């Protein structure tokens, strides 16, 4: 007899054996196919709030945007502040406000892609919600995940948030112009990244002062979708 309501129906066991995030993963694959078809490289930028994602983006747009279309999907819980900054830097932007949500998912990415309608061959940045935990779990269909930390945050961040650093294709250490003023051990930080994600490149740069941005542009260039209309230009992305 049913222990809940007293009815005589016997429970039936249904085997599912499916991934919890199967729907998200399927939609992410759809996004990936769509982006590949358009020759678009989508890069998912993840970090804690205040690491300098938007500043790095502004600088990147102004440099590489001269030679290649750049578009941005901005994820924030609230406000259009970052979208306005990106728009002023001179590129197409779609703001996604997640409200109480702490991350972007493949459905939000899909909707934003359709609204933004990025040009074929463009470079698409997805600025995820500032959070070093939740965005790690959700595949958006991007072509690369970049995790950014800044030297004001502490050397041991990769060990404290290992799940995020474990999924990174590139780790950026930002604000190296502040190294003389803070207690941050860059070499130890590199070792901590290697402990959770061996072989992942670490690029130390300053988005405000411009140190070592060539390494970041070089990485973007190396990830760009092959076969995309490449016209002669001076951009490091070409």
């Amino acid at each position, binding site marked *: 007899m049913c222990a*809940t309501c007293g009815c005589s129906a016997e429970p039936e*066991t249904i085997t599912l054996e*499916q991934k*919890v995030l199967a729907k998200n993963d399927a939609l992410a694959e759809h996004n990936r196919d769509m982006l590949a078809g358009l020759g678009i490289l989508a890069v998912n930028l993840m970090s804690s709030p205040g690491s300098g994602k938007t500043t790095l983006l502004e600088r990147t747009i102004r440099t590489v945007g001269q030679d290649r279309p750049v578009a941005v999907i901005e994820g924030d819980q609230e406000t259009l502040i970052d979208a306005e900054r990106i728009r002023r830097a001179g590129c197409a932007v779609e703001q996604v406000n997640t409200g109480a949500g702490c991350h972007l998912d493949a459905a939000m990415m899909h909707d934003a892609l359709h609204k933004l309608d990025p040009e074929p061959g463009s470079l698409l940045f997805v600025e995820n919600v500032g959070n070093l935990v939740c965005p790690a779990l959700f595949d958006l269909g991007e072509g690369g995940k970049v995790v950014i930390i800044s030297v004001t945050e502490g050397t041991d961040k990769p060990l404290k948030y290992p799940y995020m650093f*474990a999924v990174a294709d590139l780790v950026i250490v930002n604000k190296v112009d502040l190294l003389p003023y803070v207690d941050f051990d860059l070499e130890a930080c590199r070792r901590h990244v290697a*402990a959770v994600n061996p072989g992942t490149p670490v690029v130390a740069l300053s988005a405000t002062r411009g140190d070592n941005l060539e390494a970041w542009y070089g990485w973007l260039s190396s990830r760009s979708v092959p076969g995309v209309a490449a016209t002669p230009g001076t951009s490091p992305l070409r």
Partner: protein
Amino acid sequence: MHELSIAQSVVDAICERAAGRSVHSVRLRVGALTAVVPEAMRFCFDLAVEGTAAQGARLDIEHRPGMARCRSCGADVELTDPILLCPCGSADLEVTAGRELQIVSMEVR
């Protein structure tokens, strides 16, 4: 609080599969390397089932330990977190288990 999104995904999937029947219990398989906290998952599951065919359903969580094989010494090592380190000192490990996040089964009436 990504567990709320995950709980919502679970509830969507089971209600769809239950096709109108009521869901009595659900079994999840959660690996130790998934960043999903079982306590948070239970809390969020109870919120997500409200007003659905799975309202009041019991959540069973099957834990899977994190495992890795050391490429240096060949040992199978249990991992409690995603920090890759073998007792032999090597950090060259290949994760073999612990990333599961699956709906195993459910009971419906």
